[in-house]
C-alpha cells in the first residue's frame, strides 16, 4: 500500500489505484507538490498561473543562456495569452482530427511501407522496427521533407526531449542535439525556398512569416517545437498501446472481429499507459488549491498516470474497458496547452493497430523479451518483442 510518505510522482505505478494517496488528491514531498485527482489535475493543467517547468529544468541542467535557452523561453509550452494562441493556430490546422481524416491514406501507406520490410517469420522488436520509425516519416510528410530525413528527425526528437528524463548527465548531449536541430531546420528551410513552397506545414509557416503574420523568430520557434515533439513520444506511445492490446486476448479478439472498436481501444490504452505520465509545472504566484495554498515558485507535478486511474472519474479504473462513455484521459493534457498533435498521434497509432488486426490476428507479445520501463514519470518502451505468426 502506497503512503504519502513513499509516494513518488516520478514512478508510474500500474498497480496504484490512482486519483489519491491516503485519500488525498494533492500530496507533497521532497519533489514539491503532486496533483493526483483527475479534477484537480485538470484544474492545474488549465490554470495559466502554473507554468511549464521545462525552462527551469533546462536551467538546472546548466543551460542558462544562448539559443537553446532562448528558444525554450519563448516556445509554445512556456507562453500564455494572445502570443501563445498566435503560435498555436498555424500548427493546429495541420494536425487536427479534421485534417487527419484527409491524410489517413498517407498514414496507412507509411505503415505499409515500414511493415513491407519486415521478416515476419520470427519474433522481432516491434518498437524499434515499426513504432519507432513511423512518427518521423509522418513528420517528413507534414513538413514537406524527404522521407530520407526521417532517421535524422527521429534522432533529433529523441535527443532533445531527453531533457524530460531528468538525468543531468544528458545535458551536453541535449545541447548538442538542439544545435544540430537548428542546423537541420536552417538547411531544410533553405532547400524549401530554393524548391518553392508546397502545401506542407513548413511552407505554410514560412509564408505566414513572409506575409508578416508571424515574425521570423516565431516561425523558427514553431518549426523547432514541431520537430522536437514530432517523434519520440508518439513512438513510445504506439509501442505502449500495442503492448497493452496484444496482451489482453479478449480485447484483441474483439478488435480483430470488429476494427470499428480500435479508436476506443487506443484511447483506453492511452489512459492506462500514458507516455506523458507527468506534466511538471511551477506556480508563478501563490495559488489556492482547495484548502492548500501553493506558494509561489513551488513545483507542482501533475501525475497524469494517477489521474487517469482516478476512481472518482473512471469506474473500476484499473480495468481495460471498451465501453467507457466520454473517456477523456489527460494523456494529451487539457485546455490551452493541450497537445496539438493528439489527433495525428491517435490516428497513427490506430493505423498501426488496424494493420496488425487485419494482417496478424494471432500476433502475441513475447513477455520474456519485452521490457517496459519508465523515466521522469513517463512510461517508455525499451523493447517490445512481438511474434506476428506464432
Amino acid at each position, binding site marked *: 500500500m502506497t503512503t504519502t510518505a513513499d509516494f513518488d510522482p516520478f514512478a508510474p505505478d500500474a498497480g496504484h489505484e490512482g486519483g489519491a494517496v491516503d485519500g488525498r488528491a494533492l500530496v507533497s514531498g521532497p519533489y514539491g507538490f503532486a496533483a493526483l485527482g483527475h479534477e484537480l489535475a485538470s484544474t492545474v493543467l488549465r490554470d495559466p498561473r502554473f507554468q511549464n517547468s521545462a525552462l527551469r529544468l533546462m536551467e538546472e541542467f546548466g543551460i542558462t543562456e544562448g539559443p537553446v535557452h532562448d528558444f525554450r523561453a519563448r516556445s509554445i509550452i512556456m507562453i500564455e495569452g494572445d502570443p501563445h494562441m498566435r503560435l498555436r493556430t498555424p500548427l*493546429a490546422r495541420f494536425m487536427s482530427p479534421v485534417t487527419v481524416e484527409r491524410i489517413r491514406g498517407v498514414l496507412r501507406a507509411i505503415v505499409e511501407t515500414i511493415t513491407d520490410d519486415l521478416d515476419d517469420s520470427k519474433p522481432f522488436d516491434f518498437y524499434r522496427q515499426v513504432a519507432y520509425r513511423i512518427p518521423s516519416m509522418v513528420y517528413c510528410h507534414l513538413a514537406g521533407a524527404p522521407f530520407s530525413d526521417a532517421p535524422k528527425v527521429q534522432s533529433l526528437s529523441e535527443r532533445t526531449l531527453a531533457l524530460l528524463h531528468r538525468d543531468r548527465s544528458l545535458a551536453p548531449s541535449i545541447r548538442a542535439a538542439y544545435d544540430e536541430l537548428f542546423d537541420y531546420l536552417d538547411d531544410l528551410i533553405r532547400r524549401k525556398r530554393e524548391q518553392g513552397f508546397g502545401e506542407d506545414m513548413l511552407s505554410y509557416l514560412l509564408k505566414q512569416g513572409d506575409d508578416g503574420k508571424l515574425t521570423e523568430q516565431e516561425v523558427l520557434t514553431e518549426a523547432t517545437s514541431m520537430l522536437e515533439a514530432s517523434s519520440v513520444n508518439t513512438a513510445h506511445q504506439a509501442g505502449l498501446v500495442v503492448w497493452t492490446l496484444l496482451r489482453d486476448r479478449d480485447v484483441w479478439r474483439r478488435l480483430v472481429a470488429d476494427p470499428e472498436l480500435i479508436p476506443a481501444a487506443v484511447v483506453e490504452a492511452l489512459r492506462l499507459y500514458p507516455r506523458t505520465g507527468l506534466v511538471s509545472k511551477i506556480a508563478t504566484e501563490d495559488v489556492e488549491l482547495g484548502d492548500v495554498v501553493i506558494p509561489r515558485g513551488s513545483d507542482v507535478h501533475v501525475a497524469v498516470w494517477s489521474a487517469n486511474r482516478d476512481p472518482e472519474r473512471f469506474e473500476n479504473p484499473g480495468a481495460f474497458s471498451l465501453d467507457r462513455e466520454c473517456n*477523456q484521459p489527460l494523456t494529451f493534457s487539457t485546455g490551452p496547452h493541450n497537445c496539438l498533435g493528439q489527433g495525428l498521434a491517435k490516428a497513427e497509432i490506430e493505423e498501426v493497430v488496424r494493420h496488425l488486426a487485419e494482417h496478424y490476428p494471432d500476433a502475441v507479445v513475447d513477455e520474456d523479451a519485452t521490457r517496459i520501463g519508465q523515466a521522469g514519470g513517463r512510461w517508455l518502451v525499451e523493447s517490445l518483442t512481438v511474434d506476428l505468426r506464432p
Partner: protein
Amino acid sequence: MIEIKVDFERCDANGTCAALMPDVFRIGEDGRLRQLVSEVDDGRENELDEAILCCPVGAISRS
C-alpha cells in the same frame, strides 16, 4: 446562414476557436467555452472552416 455546432462533451476549452473567431466563441471566466451565436453569415464560411480545421479535439461542426 451557416449553423455551428459544438460537441461540448468533447470540447476541452483550449481556446483555439476563440482566438480565431472571438465574436463566435469565448472562453468564460470559469475556463469553459461559450458559444456566443448559433449561426454566422455565409460570407464567413472560410473563417468558420478554418476554426473547424484548427480544433485539436475536433469538437466543432457546421451545417
